[in-house]
């Protein structure tokens, strides 16, 4: 087993261990900062890694991706502002838990679930890298569209009270996604002659605006009214309340296992990524839960499901990347560049030419999971207690400033800052009028890839939309999606 050789190589290299530890910390911190996503951090740190050893550089960025996906949950739980798009689903239940004074408990659940999900994904990658790559290769545009179609069903799970307003929010998300160049014909759409709009609206500033600025505005409104912290954090009572027992975590486990596999599967598919995995796992978890009415109001399972899924993406997304050069996530796309810069040719020959490097990288990933798991489990509750002691008049201005920095730094483009501010007001108005920001963002995320895959499929097909029926895998996912809609409609009627 090459992985043991890899582990031995990693564990006997103190400099590499240091980089992995550093990456675990850096990832968690940038992940936790609202709006500063792991992929933005990796993009910023990328030039530094050009001067590092190839293995150290790859391990450093790979582990930042892992711990960043986890770190996003900290901000989602504490401030209702997801640190990354991947943790936008976590806030649905994480924040209500926080308001009941259970932030540390929520974070412990997030940590354990992330670690289990990440570990599952990594093990699947190590044992099944060849198989995963073979499957990924068979999935063309029709299959991808079918998966997107099935994923669209999850929007239903976050729609909330008003179905009509939820659907309207989702439709708005699709509309905003259409801005920019048409993915097939490269024609301009909805740009109104504005040059900056030709590039479309980027997810990062949009998400920071909707969730982070929107939340700051909401907090601004309730200023004067004392924020209801249940009681002084740090008291013996609060500590006792936040202790996580096995009896509490046990119901989460089935959700964690299912979500890990959902995340791992979505990770294999190019272009979907952690945010979609988290929402699909949340939707599927809510559908199967024994207590669906508690989801969205502070169910521990509602934190566990998306957190396991978004981290499970990390490992399997490496399989198509390493063997076929197809990145399964934004972070993966950046890693391709790292291989390129260090002169390592990714592709089927990688396992012949650089086997040692690849397995050492997987081993470094496992080590990184252990690091961020330990730091997270013991540190997150401390961070939570510390942050809750900071007065909101200090905290929210700081978050407000970070949002601006984060929006600008993701591409170094001032237009993104305008987008963020506009999205901030939009998100605030949506919340005021009971529209649904989560449905808006998830449909925005899904619509781009879904449209591209749909139209590519039609170009590939000899008989139009029949291509989705004649390809068995595509048909399977389409039926799955229709089945889930049917099931949900029936349970709503009851």
């Amino acid at each position, binding site marked *: 087993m090459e992985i043991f050789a890899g582990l031995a190589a990693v564990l006997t290299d103190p400099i590499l261990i240091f980089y992995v530890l550093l990456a675990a910390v850096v990832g968690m911190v940038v992940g936790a900062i609202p709006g500063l996503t792991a992929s933005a951090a990796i*993009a910023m740190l*990328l*030039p530094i890694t*050009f001067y590092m050893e190839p293995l150290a550089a790859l391990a450093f960025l790979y582990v930042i991706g892992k711990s960043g996906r986890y770190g996003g949950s900290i901000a989602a739980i504490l401030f209702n502002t997801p640190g990354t798009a991947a943790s936008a689903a976590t806030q649905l239940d994480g924040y209500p838990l926080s308001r009941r004074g259970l932030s540390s408990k929520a974070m412990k659940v997030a940590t354990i679930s992330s670690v289990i999900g990440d570990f599952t994904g990594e093990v699947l990658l190590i044992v099944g890298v060849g198989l995963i790559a073979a499957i*990924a*290769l*068979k*999935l*063309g*545009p029709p299959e991808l569209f079918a998966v997107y179609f099935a994923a669209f069903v999850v929007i239903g799970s976050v729609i909330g009270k008003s179905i009509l307003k939820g659907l309207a929010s989702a439709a708005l998300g699709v509309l905003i996604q259409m801005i920019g*160049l048409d*993915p*097939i*014909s*490269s*024609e*301009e759409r909805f740009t109104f002659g504005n*040059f*900056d709009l*030709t*590039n479309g609206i980027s997810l990062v500033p949009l998400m920071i605006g909707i969730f982070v600025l929107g939340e700051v505005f909401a907090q601004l409104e309730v200023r004067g009214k004392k924020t209801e912290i249940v009681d002084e954090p740090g008291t013996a009572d609060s500590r006792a309340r936040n202790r996580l027992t096995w009896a509490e975590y046990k119901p989460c486990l089935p959700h964690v296992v299912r979500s890990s596999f959902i995340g791992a599967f979505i990770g294999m598919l*190019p272009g979907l990524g952690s945010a979609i995995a988290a929402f699909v796992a949340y939707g599927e978890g809510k559908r199967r839960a024994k207590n669906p009415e508690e989801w969205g109001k502070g169910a521990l399972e509602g934190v566990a499901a998306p957190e396991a899924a978004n981290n499970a993406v990390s490992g399997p997304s490496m399989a*198509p990347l390493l063997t*076929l*050069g*197809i*990145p399964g996530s934004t972070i993966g*796309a*950046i890693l*391709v*560049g*790292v291989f*390129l*810069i260090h*002169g390592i*040719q*990714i*592709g*089927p*020959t*990688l396992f012949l030419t650089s086997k040692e490097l690849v397995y050492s990288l997987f081993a470094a990933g496992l080590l990184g999971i252990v690091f961020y798991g330990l730091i997270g489990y013991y540190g997150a509750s401390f961070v939570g207690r510390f942050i809750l002691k900071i007065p909101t008049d200090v905290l929210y201005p700081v978050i407000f400033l970070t949002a601006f920095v984060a929006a600008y730094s993701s*591409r*170094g*483009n001032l237009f993104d800052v305008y987008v963020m501010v506009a999205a901030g007001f939009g998100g605030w108005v949506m919340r005021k009028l009971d529209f649904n920001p989560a449905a808006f963002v998830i449909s925005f995320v899904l619509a781009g890839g879904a449209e*591209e895959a749909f139209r*590519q499929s039609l*170009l*590939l097909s*000899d008989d139009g939309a029949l291509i989705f029926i004649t390809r068995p895998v595509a048909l399977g996912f389409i039926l799955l999606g229709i089945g889930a809609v049917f099931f949900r409609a029936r349970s709503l009627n009851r």
Partner: protein
Amino acid sequence: MDRRNFLRVSAAASALTLAPLNAAFADWKPRRPINVILPYKAGGGTDSFGRAITAVSDKVLSVPLVIVNKPGSSGITGATEAAGARPDGNTIMLTSAGSFLLTSMLRETKVNPFDSFRIVAQIGNLSSSLMVPADSPYQSIDDLVADAKANPGKLRWGHTGRGGVHHVSGQGFLNANGLKAQDVPFKGGSAIRAAVIGAQVDFGFTGVQQAAGFENELRVLGLNAGSRDKVMSDVPTFTEQGHAFVDISSPIVLFAPKTMDDEIAVGMEAAIKEIAALPEFAEIMAKRGNSPAFLSGAEAEARLKAMQEQAAPIIDQLKSES
């Protein structure tokens, strides 16, 4: 390397060791780091040229070259910024000139390679190539052409985006051979490679360097260029196989704001020529599956002009179809 060394190298290069220094070169004395705007994401194909040149530029220049990635809108975001920069030689742009040219022809852009920029030099070149899946029935371009002729409009071919270098180059190949086939755009080189390997399409046009390491998964039928690629040297060209081609490729070119002084431009061109000739540069490029291909500013401009002429009818055809 300090400036004295830099001058000595330049003097040696111009083979005038005892004569006064090459006047033009000496007149360009950059004092501050030079920002090289790269209008694509870090880690892409064009970026790898940028990283290679910055890694070795200190052997010739006394100030560092700093890559500033400004991605967006198929490279036009960065190009617009570079065109508006102060023409003092401290801000230049390195880009895939082929896709810049074609984008400016296809869309209404505020900037274009000739009116908004002064072309400093070409440092590399990426050629388009025709690939099929490993288990494809096409063993040669002749097989493919024959089948496409027998089934007009039935074959599906992929490229990296409408109006991009590989789309126009592929369409040029189809036109030159009187073929009709349905194109399917994919996003970027790795996506089209996966589509070819997975036989989602019958054939694909993309950069020849995408095939490196995938010899068992796909077959490159031909290179769309006048001469063979230096790295992928066993791929025969279209002409070698007796097929007409349209010379659309992607030269990697340094651009400076249009109004930059002649003296700075000439000095910069000379410095870039030296950097491109460094063995270290070739070594780094070889590691990444590329090779240096220097052309002076005037030669690079002539080449782009020729490409513009070749592409014009194809672009018109694409515009009328959409």
